[in-house]
């Protein structure tokens, strides 16, 4: 074969020995023209073939991309009809008609100019402006476009999604594919301190509403190739990105699969907040307790995934979810690890005590005042009776009134613009608190009780604090009917309920006083020095149990 080729393509002087130099030049020119013509013919044939290959759009696609740009334009325009923020930039590059579609405000135009327009249209420095665009999309990707992120897409829905996520869509005449050029750039909140989980000594960066930023915050904390991030899309209309973050060789076997299975079962059109995902994922949607841990802190997520748990980050919300979740894990703070173990243990115990107070204090007040004043020392009982003598309401109504005022006050403070929060606090705390006593509506002791109750509920995870706030009302009702006996029955009902809750197969109450999980007690109600906590929490069932003293750990 090689010999034949050598025969066919031998020297011109050998084929035509009598020809002159000018004749040979003419022949060469003809040959060049022929090659150019055949190239054009070839391109046209390819376009014809592509149009022949064009099939009707599949059922789940809005349309099918055509190789003829003029056919694609009305289809894309129709898809983005009345979307004035979608911009269309027509241009001719390398001898072909092309279209760039992008969302105004979500795309970095400078990047597009540099990586697409300058390259294809040719800048002052570029000489080969007339060279036609290679028809093969892969060569376009390899040789021309200089964007770091570029994806070739065949489905129309993919191309539209690309535009809506902030990427630019490049469509070139003669190619029945679209190119997503990575150029996302939108307004976002900077990395700030977590609003609901401020700490004294720990790291001060918190999640924002951008998924990629949140992933970076976690990645920065561990240079571990076993840290895997799986991004899924959720919401038929919103197509919100959800990232599952886990450590491949630590995560409890079956946990990730179960989370993915439950996510696949979610059928909703839009995800606005991570609570929506949480309600779909958790086993008991009616419980007030958070069955997935919610956090704004990247260090909390990082610590959790190194215990064998899975972090779930939802785009457009700063609240990450962690599964599974236990009561203990929500009661812990990153500050517990910044303080000395003895101090941290004391603070933890105090937090649990605060949790108890935040639920039961108003109930205990009603019970003691209404049913069991005899349980108090005589002097205290007399002084309380004197205070109560000035108020017209029974203890239950008094507490109910104060509770409603307190809840309204807390809600108002959250929704009040930050500049007038101080003023609102003064009005709510001092003015109302003082005048309510002076007006004889409530007694000073109850004001103290309610103030302590309110403060204690802020000393823990916000979601858990909300759960405890919800439980106050039934306890108040029980105490007004059955006194301390009612309070105790309520406490036991809450305890049974908490013991019955499951978070991804794990008990919500976790290893709390479980003697089969004695190892976990080292970092539960109290925190032992870190050198004693050599193992990961047993209750989360991580693949590699040892944290220290093991090469794999």
């Amino acid at each position, binding site marked *: 074969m090689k010999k034949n080729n050598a025969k066919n393509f031998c020297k011109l002087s050998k084929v035509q020995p009598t020809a002159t130099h000018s004749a040979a030049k003419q022949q060469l020119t003809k040959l060049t023209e022929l090659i150019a013509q055949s190239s054009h013919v070839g391109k046209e044939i390819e376009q014809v073939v592509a149009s022949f290959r064009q099939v009707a759009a599949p059922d789940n696609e809005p349309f099918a991309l055509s190789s003829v740009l003029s056919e694609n334009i009305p289809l894309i325009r129709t898809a983005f009809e009345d979307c004035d923020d979608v911009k269309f930039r027509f241009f001719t590059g390398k001898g072909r008609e092309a279209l760039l579609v992008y969302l105004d405000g979500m795309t970095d135009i400078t990047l597009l100019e540099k990586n697409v327009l300058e390259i294809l249209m040719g800048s002052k420095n570029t000489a080969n402006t007339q060279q036609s665009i290679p028809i093969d999309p892969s060569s376009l990707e390899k040789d021309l476009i200089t964007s770091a992120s570029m994806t070739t897409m065949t489905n129309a829905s993919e191309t539209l999604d690309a535009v809506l996520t902030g990427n630019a869509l490049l469509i070139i005449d003669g190619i029945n594919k679209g190119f997503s050029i990575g150029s996302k750039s939108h307004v976002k909140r900077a990395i700030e301190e977590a609003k609901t989980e401020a700490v004294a000594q720990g790291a001060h960066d918190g999640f924002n509403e951008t998924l990629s930023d949140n992933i970076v915050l976690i990645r920065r904390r561990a240079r571990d190739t076993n840290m895997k991030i799986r991004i899924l899309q959720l919401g038929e209309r919103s197509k919100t990105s959800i990232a599952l973050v886990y450590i491949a060789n630590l995560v409890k076997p079956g946990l990730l699969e179960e989370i993915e299975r439950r996510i696949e079962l979610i059928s909703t059109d839009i995800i606005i907040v991570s609570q929506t995902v949480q309600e779909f994922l958790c086993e008991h949607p009616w419980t007030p307790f958070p069955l997935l841990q919610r956090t704004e802190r990247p260090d909390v997520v990082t610590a959790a995934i190194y215990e064998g748990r899975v972090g779930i980050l939802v785009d457009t919300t700063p609240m990450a979810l962690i599964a599974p979740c236990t009561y203990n894990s929500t009661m812990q703070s990153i500050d517990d690890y910044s303080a000395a173990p003895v101090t941290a243990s004391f603070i933890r115990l105090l937090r649990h005590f605060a949790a108890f107070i935040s639920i039961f204090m108003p109930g205990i007040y009603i019970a003691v005042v209404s049913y069991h004043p005899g349980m108090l020392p005589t002097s205290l009982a007399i002084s309380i009776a004197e205070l109560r003598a000035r108020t017209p309401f029974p203890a239950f109504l008094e507490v109910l009134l104060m509770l409603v005022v307190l809840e309204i006050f807390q809600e108002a403070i959250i929704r009040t613009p930050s500049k007038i929060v101080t003023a609102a606090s003064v009005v709510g705390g001092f003015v109302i608190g003082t005048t309510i006593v002076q007006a004889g509506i409530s007694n000073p002791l109850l004001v103290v009780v309610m103030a302590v109750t309110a403060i204690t509920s802020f000393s823990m995870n916000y979601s858990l604090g909300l759960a405890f706030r919800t439980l106050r009302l039934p306890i108040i009702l029980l105490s007004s009917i*059955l006194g301390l*006996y009612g309070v105790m029955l309520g406490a*036991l009902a809450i305890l*049974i309920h908490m013991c019955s809750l499951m978070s991804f197969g794990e008990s919500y109450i976790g290893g709390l006083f479980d003697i089969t999980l004695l190892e976990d007690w080292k970092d539960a109600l109290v925190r032992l020095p870190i050198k004693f906590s050599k193992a990961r929490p047993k209750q989360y069932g991580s693949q590699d149990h040892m944290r220290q003293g093991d090469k794999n750990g």
Partner: protein
Amino acid sequence: MDRKTICAKVIRMANLEQKAKMSPLQLSIVLVTLCFGVSMITSTSEIIAPAKQSAWVSIIWGGVIFCGAALLMVKLGNLFPNDTFVEYMPKLWGQFFGTLIVWWLNVIMVLMFSIALANFSRTITFFLFDRTPTEVIALGLMSVCIYGALQDFGTILRMMQIVFFIIGPSINTVWLSSLINFQPENLSPLWPEDWGNTITVSFQAWPAFGGYEYILLLLPLVHPKKKSLTFSISAAFGFIIINYTSFVLITIAVLSPQGIQSSPYPILEVIRGVQIPGTFVERLEGYFMLFWIPIALSSHLIVLWGLAQTRMRQNQYMDHRPLVLILAPLLYTLSILLDSLEAINALNKLDTWLALIFSFMIIPISLILAWRKKRSVPQNSGAT
């Protein structure tokens, strides 16, 4: 990864399925909570009244005797590792007598539950709500008890451990404060003069230890570790004996045997007497009663759950929850029918006799039958 490693990982994995089982130590916690229950307040006077100063010996003897009975039950249960007594009693005794024995234990537990609930509501009414009907108090406990019994065993187990570790130390702290009024001269003569009476009272102390019969129901839920199981049950009884002995000794020392006879609730009288003037430490009986409520509830809860489980297994149902809802009104009705102390005492005596026959006649005979059956069956065909 070899099979051994995989098994080790699976065992280490604390998942839902694993938590439906319990360790021998957890069984001992369940036993302690079950046995203490209501009787920790009511039984003491029943033992002190006939045995007087030698009641502490009766308690120790009683504990040892009932511990022996419990260990016999463990031996019997170990011969049928995957079955409860509901399954193997008919195999040993035949269908009719086997079912009769299962019903026998059911009756013991029904009476125990109703007596305990009646005693509980009377005590709470007496000390906390003198104008509230006992039925209302019983209904409150019953409601929470039903809610708890509707859950799976893992939930009950977790709850019992929390009660044991939080309430146990608290109630003991309150109780030990009564040492302030300890008068050792009331204890003499410390050594029993009438051994016959002391031993008879030991058997009458069953209400203080009653409930250990549920070992027969709970054994299949325990991880099979025979040695530690014997140790755990002995430890549980040791714990109960120590506590009851302290109850008896301190009560006698504080109130004297004569004082006890005039008091329906001597334990609470002892704590009521604790007062340190000028401090907050006074009227501790209210706190003691509050700490007692979770223990009483845990005890009721496990009995109700056990009754429903027994019926479920007898009727071969898949779910015990409907049976909880059926049994609860019956138990509640029976308890409110016990409206006098005489009725409670009479039924208590009947229950004690039924339990003694069960523990010291039926169980030993069942064990002998099981051994005989095991010997008669070829070794390769298994125990059952």
